[in-house]
């Protein structure tokens, strides 16, 4: 078993609980933006893809890495963009333009 595994497992379990506690409080009103935002955050796999695409490797790994960069980065850009667009639409009655 690699040395990092156990510490990663600690991190995973704790992050899972943190996620559970934080996300449980999100109002059902915002469940769609929540899904869009977590998608954008999950797109952080782009940092791993960048290394795969740019390090010294085989042609295959460079191609797979580059596709992964494009796929993940499209989620990052699109996810933040649409979350912000959706949130701007949520208004209270008082602030409505007449």
């Amino acid at each position, binding site marked *: 078993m690699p040395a990092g595994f156990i510490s990663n497992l600690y991190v995973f379990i704790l992050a*899972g609980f943190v996620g559970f506690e934080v996300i*449980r409080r999100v109002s059902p009103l*915002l*469940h769609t933006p929540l899904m869009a935002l977590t998608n954008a955050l*999950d797109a952080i796999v782009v940092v791993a893809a960048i290394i795969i695409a740019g390090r010294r490797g085989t042609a295959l790994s460079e191609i797979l890495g580059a596709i992964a960069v494009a796929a993940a980065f499209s989620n990052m850009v699109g996810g933040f963009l649409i*979350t912000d667009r959706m949130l701007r639409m949520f208004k209270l009655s008082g602030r409505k333009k007449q």
Partner: protein
Amino acid sequence: MNAITLQYLTDFSYIIAIALFVLSLKWLSSPATARRGVLAGEIGAAMAVVTTFFNPELVQFKWILIALLVGTMIGIPLGLVHMTAVPQRTAMSHAFGALAAALIGISEYYMRIPHITKFEMTEIALEVIIGSLSFTGSLIAAGKLQEVLPQRPIVYRGQNVVSLSVLGASVLAALVLIFNPMAPFFFPAMVIISLLFGVLLVTPIGGADMPTVIALLNSYVGLTAALLGFVLNSKVLVVAGALDGSSGFILAVIMCKAMNRSFTNVVFGAFGQLQVSAKGEEEEKIVHTASPEEAAAILGAANTVLIVPGYGMAVAQAQHKVRELLDVLTKKGVDVKFGIHPVAGRMPGHMNVLLAEADVPYDKLIEMDDANSEMPQIDVALIIGANDVTNPAAKTDQSSPIYGMPIIEVDNARTVMVIKRSLSPGFAGIDNPLFYLDKTMMLFGDAKSFVGGIIKELTGGGE
């Protein structure tokens, strides 16, 4: 800058990114702070990406930059879609997320062989299997939501046996690889079989179950990213994956509860297939219909109106007309609220963003439980394009496939109005006794033009 300092800087920027991600989700809990949450997430993500460019392992940047450009060009249009298209956009983004994670795992396998331990091989195999099946599963979900593929569940005899055998085959391939990582063809076979399983997993699931399926796929994608974090020993991926995974999981649980069903039932149940024929002979039932004029007269005279929107409102693009109706009725002194069922629409929270896009203030939107406790004081419950989520059979008819599902109890309102194209049953294929109640008025027609007709009556006739 030497390599060790650089490593510390990278680690610190990733740690700050993780902290910002948690804050980002925390701020999303209320609409007042939610946009700050997006900003926090953006800063965290940008920091992590920029510091990654200083990684000493990187020897070429051309393809990275091209790929980032391509990603931006795909991402921007996907970020600008209309709110009606958000469910399929979400499914597409799950597919992209799963694709990225699966490709990285595949590339790691080919980089590491033949020097790969059993432990590493197990991690990679698990990551690639879940990533691949989430990729094709999400594509099928997106196809169904875009109506490129039929929304009805596609089922055949022995389906679950076939699907589970396919999953078994990919696990078997993984086991062979764990004991002999160099076994020829087993790795590509494992990937292809997992891709196939993703297709088989989602094809039998019908449109009405999409909120649960999207949430489940969301949690798979998160899990894939977390597993990739284990493979690459990258804690930023472990955390982001765990957050995404728990979010999808929580949403899936909420969706299941709102339908009174279990995960296995959603995935293997092929909802509502046989019930239509099981109904048998229909006795003549009396239906009261009404014209836009009659509906307008009753709505205008009401004190309290509860609008219950469903997927049909999205299909008819009626949300902007519905907002106009809200304005007209509010001006007449009618108290109008919207009752939102958790599974109304095609993804969690779908109705809320649709109505928000149409400028309906969010304090007018109330959740199911609140709607039900206010129901006895409601003069008119107006149902637009919703069916199963208001079906009283869920409370009374034990033989109904939706028996036990929590509903918005519109039958407790004084008058019920249902805007619907025809009497045909909803996606679940279940007849709705609500339509035959004495206090129910069926408003047959297209939701958008019918609401338009009511507005015309209210504005023209009222002054």
